[in-house]
């Protein structure tokens, strides 16, 4: 095996990594202790952050990439993949996280955007990216830029699943519509939703997005997680929902089991018992427009 015969960072490797996460729960953590709890509970990966989204919301101001020191400590603490968030369009934050050794980068609306016109050109990186989307057009634009995984945006840090449901329903519904269309109609739809025609055709053919599609933004209970799986998510991100709940270890284990047995109400009933209080929630209708994170990036 000579080095020149090895290929790194290909689309197959990036999307393959995302496929290995399927059926799993990716948990937000802010330090090595939380990361170990997440791994022990059965998380498939952790998202290393300085603050969980609910606390970012409270803090206000400009939210940036976490201190690489925190991320490095989390990388050292666990054997599962470690992800990190960068600001939309912030190519250098992504270069830094790639150098630190994160396994996937989340170009995330939870942080304050660095570029209000363009996202990062993700094909230029060896490390795979996950990006948020609210509808099919947005998902396919991100995939066209090189995202190896999509997560529906929901509304992070609210503990309210309503937006996650809205976005998953939108993407799944739009794909179902495509499947009933003629080639000409699909071409027209591709123009309307501002997505590459080839990717639109691929969705129609496969009956799903060409990449793995997770759900995120507002999942706070095992039932929320199972709901998103029943709607067709390949897995879930849980941000503030675990470590802002009363008993994080119990909540983490329960959500992992709920995602695994999402179609078995008896198991869901068992794992949902006696978890203590979930994170405090926010009615999204009470948010001011500038507080709504999902509008960042398009």
């Amino acid at each position, binding site marked *: *095996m000579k080095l020149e*015969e*090895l*290929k*790194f*960072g*290909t689309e*197959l*490797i990036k999307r*393959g*990594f995302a*496929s*290995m*996460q*399927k*059926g*799993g729960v990716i948990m937000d953590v802010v330090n090595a202790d939380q990361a170990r709890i997440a*791994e022990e*509970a*059965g*998380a*498939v*990966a952790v998202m290393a952050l300085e603050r969980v989204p609910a606390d970012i919301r409270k803090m206000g101001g400009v939210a940036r990439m976490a201190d690489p020191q925190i991320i490095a400590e989390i*990388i050292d603490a666990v*054997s*599962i*993949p470690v992800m990190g968030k960068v600001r939309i369009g912030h190519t250098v934050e992504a270069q830094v996280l*790639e150098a630190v*050794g*994160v*396994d*996937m980068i989340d170009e995330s609306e939870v942080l304050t955007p660095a570029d209000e016109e363009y996202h990062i050109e993700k094909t230029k990186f*060896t*490390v*795979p990216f996950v990006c948020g989307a609210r509808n099919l057009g947005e998902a396919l634009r991100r995939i066209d830029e090189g995202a190896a995984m999509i997560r529906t945006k929901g509304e992070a840090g609210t503990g309210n699943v309503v937006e996650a449901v809205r976005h998953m329903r939108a993407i799944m519904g739009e794909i179902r519509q495509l499947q009933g269309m003629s080639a000409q109609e699909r071409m027209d739809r591709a123009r309307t939703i501002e997505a590459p025609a080839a990717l639109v055709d691929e969705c129609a053919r496969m009956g799903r997005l060409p990449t793995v599609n997770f759900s995120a933004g507002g999942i706070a209970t095992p039932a929320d997680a199972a709901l998103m799986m029943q709607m067709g998510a390949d897995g879930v991100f849980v941000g503030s929902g675990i470590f802002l709940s009363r008993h994080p270890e119990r909540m983490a284990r329960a959500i*992992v*089991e709920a995602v*695994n047995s999402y179609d078995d109400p008896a198991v869901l009933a068992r794992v949902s018992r006696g978890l203590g209080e979930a994170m405090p929630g926010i009615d999204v209708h009470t948010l001011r427009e500038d507080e709504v994170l999902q509008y960042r990036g398009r």
Partner: protein
Amino acid sequence: MGVRIGVLALQGDVSEHILAFRHALDGKGEVCAVRRPEEIADLDGLAIPGGESTTICRLVDKNAMRRPIEAFEGGIFATCAGMVLAAREVDDPRIAPLGCIDIIVERNAFGRQRESFETDVHIAGLRTPFHAVFIRAPVASRVGPKATVLGSVDRGVVAVRSGRHMALAFHPELGGDTRLHCMFLEHLQDTG
């Protein structure tokens, strides 16, 4: 009646394995996702897919599947995380392996995701090299007397056969080449 293959569907790239086996079987058998302990015994072959080995390990126990897999008499097709789980021994106390295949496995032997790679591997029994995708892959650091090495890279052994079982450090289900799935099905016929 054709062979019955099950893919352990607790976490990981289950649908990719189902598609690859469906292609390899070419109508001469069936493949299904396996999520309950009572579904294992009737199978001829069980695939343990790629995914996160710590997660799958935990879910194997949560779903009471350890005993049925240990007692399973058919062939096991284990890839990446599956190879970690099917091993006799793992270098990491976070994993309690199932002990199906006589190998000692080192997790994440090549490094992190940025060190994941594609390369051609020579596999004993295949005429041309197999284009293999390694994703945070393990290696077999030691191969016991009951197992045979099928393929290696510089870092160590990446493909092993042991009777009806096969363990692969890479992902044959991702590249569209089903020769290793076919080889596994042939071994099932040989000794089964």
